[in-house]
């Protein structure tokens, strides 16, 4: 599945958060968004996920327009601004509950994803007892366990140690190998240089530069 965010502008009252941004997220490739805090990366991701409506512009999933042809994004897993999971459930239970909606992921898929991010699938600790790093890892697992066609990761290396950063690189590479379209935002350019096929550099809501690091 190929995703395009075309000519996206987003304004809130007097503030222009995104200004005519176009980003292409092809299948089987990792697309990076790089920029400092406040450059518009997260807002763009929220628009692609359908959580925010653009003031102008459109998001296309295989040429179908989100909000017109599609009521919600197609086959998308996302980690945006931290994992939104249930505090009083275990990691496995959280993913299982999310998986209930589409009904496509098996228990084995869930266990595999949890193990892939370096957590124990049999962990009985509730999510609220997880460390920040563990929460972030579970959030990444939640984004990939259903094998979606589009994976969106917003600052996935936050709160992760060196091994966690390497894990993120492995997961992203695996998703690319699987044929997913991956969109990853990171303020650490070295991480994007290691994994991304194409990087959009953002500043003050605009794409100021594009790079092909690989």
């Amino acid at each position: 599945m190929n995703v395009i965010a075309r000519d996206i502008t987003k304004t809130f009252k007097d503030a222009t958060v995104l200004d005519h941004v176009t980003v292409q997220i092809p299948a089987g490739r990792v697309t990076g968004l790089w920029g400092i805090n406040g450059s518009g990366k997260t807002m763009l991701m929220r628009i692609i996920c359908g959580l925010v409506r653009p003031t102008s512009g459109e998001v296309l999933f295989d040429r179908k327009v989100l909000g017109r042809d599609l009521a919600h994004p197609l086959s998308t897993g996302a980690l945006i601004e931290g994992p939104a999971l249930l505090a009083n459930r275990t990691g496995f239970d959280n993913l299982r509950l999310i998986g209930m909606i589409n009904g496509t992921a098996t228990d084995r898929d869930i266990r595999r994803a949890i193990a892939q991010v370096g957590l124990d699938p049999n962990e009985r600790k509730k999510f609220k007892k997880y460390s920040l790093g563990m929460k972030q890892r579970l959030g990444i697992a939640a984004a990939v366990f259903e094998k979606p066609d589009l994976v969106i990761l917003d600052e996935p290396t936050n709160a992760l140690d060196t091994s966690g950063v390497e894990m993120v690189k492995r997961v992203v590479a695996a998703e690319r190998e699987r044929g997913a379209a991956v969109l990853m935002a990171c303020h650490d350019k070295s991480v994007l240089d290691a994994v991304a096929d194409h990087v959009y550099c953002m500043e003050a809501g605009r794409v100021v530069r594009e790079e092909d690091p690989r």
Partner: protein
Amino acid sequence: MSKRAATRRAARRALLLDLRLGFSTSTRWYALTALFALCSIELAVAGSDFFGIERASLTWADHLALFVGGCEPYVFRQGLIFVPPAGWLLGLLLLAYMTLGYPYRDLMGFGQHALMRASRASWLLSKCAWIVLTVLAFWAIVVAAATVITVLDGAPFSLRLTQGAFATVTGLANVPPGGIGALPFFAGMLGMSVALCLAQMTLAFIVRPSVAFGCLAALLVVSAHTMHPALLGNYLMLARLGGAVPGGVSPLVGLGVAAVLALASVVGGLFFFRRTDLVAKELFA
């Protein structure tokens, strides 16, 4: 499976998930409801002694209705200040609070997973269904509490409201010896509580939950103060029941108003929600 069928299936599953999560987070509130209902009804029934009413003469319907007994409308008199009926107000605010938190918390958290897998309309309708079922569960618990007290008092299981029940909350009622049928009042009460909770949810999304709860609380207090068909809290109060109390409100009119309010809340909510932005912890319309 076609994409449309898959979307419909996802919407159904999102509803089931909502019901499961919504109820599992509310168990302590149901326990509190049971305790509150038992205390509130028992206090009201015990108070009937003061008015010379025999406990055993109060029917099952009386016990249930006394949960929302309320008070007479306020009439200004020198030195007499308005005091809202605490039991009535607390009981309804408990229901309002129970239905307030989950939809908004879900929207800002776990529910975003559902919003990316099913449409916004199905998410909102799922929340509406959850609210309806929560209100039904609340009243089912109150009914159970009323039943327990009826059994313990050896009172008759009748659907007639008697003069005795009205006498404990108002001196204005005039009920025929055979009592009056309780079903219209209960139906109006149920309908209006569902409608007000749906309206509260819609307002919570448009403005914010604390404002929505405050508006509902204000409406209830003003309704307790003044008897008027436009003040919707009157339909939730035994002491304002038309047919027993002069100038009282008609429960059937209340049911009609509730239906319109519920529909407006759902339609208005859908209209607003489909267009709004879901930005972390705030909504920008």
